[in-house]
């Protein structure tokens, strides 16, 4: 099975034998791949019944859960990494989920479609319509993507939440990465990937 490049990139970021939690794990492809290549253990959280069956078929431990109801069933630091690939834009409160991810896991890995991509900017600027693209195929009225953000928005949120960005990558929908994406991720990256952790020392005064 060919792995999506963002998933392949993630597997380079993960230490062998880690314990993982994948929020919105879909059909379990990433967890199955990481288990087979990096000897990882862990669980996927998923809400869709068909995907739950697919995870079980792939031998992935899957827990039926609604991310909007939180992940309070998990205790602090119980995972090496908490991963969320292309799900943050569907969640009611991405900020709270990010904080929860870094409470439950020592590090977090997040990927999302970048709304700052030039094509999205172009369609709004020149055609005056809400962008829909390969990475964001739905129309504005039926999309599940309720919290779209740009690379810059995301990094601003991380700064506000005292989250440290350990690693960043940007790829296109074919999940290739080329020099313009590395050079100007917010303009040329269609999908952004981040590895995060809580800043060791918290600020005394909120920003």
């Amino acid at each position, binding site marked *: 099975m060919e792995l999506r490049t963002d998933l392949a990139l993630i597997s380079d970021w993960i230490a062998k034998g880690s*314990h993982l939690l994948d929020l919105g794990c879909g059909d379990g492809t990433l967890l199955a791949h990481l288990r087979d290549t990096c000897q990882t253990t862990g669980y996927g959280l998923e809400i869709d*019944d068909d995907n*739950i069956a697919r995870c*079980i*078929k792939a031998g992935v431990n*899957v*827990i*039926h859960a609604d991310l909007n109801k939180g992940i309070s069933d*998990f205790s602090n630091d*119980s995972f090496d990494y908490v991963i969320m690939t292309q799900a943050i834009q569907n969640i009611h409160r991405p900020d709270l989920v990010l904080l929860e991810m870094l409470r439950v896991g020592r590090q977090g890995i997040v990927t999302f479609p970048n709304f700052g991509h030039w094509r999205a900017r172009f369609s709004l600027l020149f055609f005056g319509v809400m962008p829909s693209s390969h990475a964001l195929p739905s129309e504005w009225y039926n999309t599940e993507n309720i919290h779209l953000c740009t690379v810059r928005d995301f990094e601003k949120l991380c700064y506000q939440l005292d989250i440290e960005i350990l690693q960043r990558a940007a790829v296109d929908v074919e999940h290739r990465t080329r020099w313009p994406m590395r050079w100007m991720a917010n303009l040329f990256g269609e999908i952004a990937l981040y590895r995060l952790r809580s800043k060791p020392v918290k600020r005394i005064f909120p920003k």
Partner: protein
Amino acid sequence: MPDILSPDCVGLVTPQTQKFTTPLKLDCGRTLPSYELVYETYGTLNKNQTNAVLICHALSGDHHAAGYYSMQDKKPGWWETCIGPGKPIDTNRFFVVSLNNLGGCQGSTGPTAVNPETGKPYGPDFPIITVRDWVKTQARLGDVLGISQWAAVIGGSLGGMQAMQWAIDYPKHLQHSIVIAAAPKLSAQNIAFNEVARQAILSDPEFHEGHYYQHDTIPHRGLMLARMLGHITYLSEDSMRKKFGRELRQGKLNFGFDVEFQVESYLRHQGRSFVDRFDANTYLLMTKALDYFDPASEHDGNLSAALSKVLAKFLVISFTSDWRFSPTRSREIVKALLANKKPVSYAEIKAYEGHDAFLMPIPHYIQIFKTYMQQIKI
């Protein structure tokens, strides 16, 4: 009555009886010198004995989980929807063992059996049995059948509690524990329902303090009431509305206390037919086993500690409309397994059927159950 047996049915089956003469020390402190267990098997045990699956029954269940006894039978076994060729518990692949638990009334030693010490039926003197006692007897049955490790132990409701207890008491003797529509212990509300059911039986004048066999009678009113109450808790408001609504049997109000609404007629029928097949003393015992089940109690109420030594992989399934053992209760089990980093999958099935959903052919339930069973290595 089936005219022809469907290809996904195990077909005609015959129960078997196994006598055990090694005394059994029970949780209540008493010892049963000998006892019998009646059981059925479906499918074939493979050469390495790696494909055995144990089915644990719920409150009013028995060993007859699948197939028919004769072509004249009106109904198949109680879990026909899930056991058979090509079904989730695929008898082409698995060797399935289903027994009537100790204390039961369908052939295994229980209150209706003759006490060898007195020559009379045990009646109310039959010792109180716990889930742990059951698991112990099931393990002994496994030994007799030459099964050193079950591929899976599976149960719904009280049966799910047994599947859980198996993983705790005999961690090396099962690969998978499948816990459906269960709970880690009863809530006060659950116990309250059981208590009303018991009081219905105990206060029936025909109960004779449990010695009704000698009086050649049965506490049919009490047992019927107990079953009617139980039945309400196994259904959801939605399923009752769908099944009966406020439909009247004669199409008009009669301003009396006879059966008027369809739901009344249904409950009375369920109660009456239960009296014909079930023993009141067994009902009392089974509800007590439910009430007492609480594996966390030996670990200061810490369920994670109780599950810390399990080796089996878990599949936990709950149903959205089940209010007797709600999804929240199943999630307590899942949470305790997660805290131990144990392998577990959990599915919450959208269903309107209430607690009884675990017996129904609900497509997503069947799909997930079947997929899980298929990936079990034998």
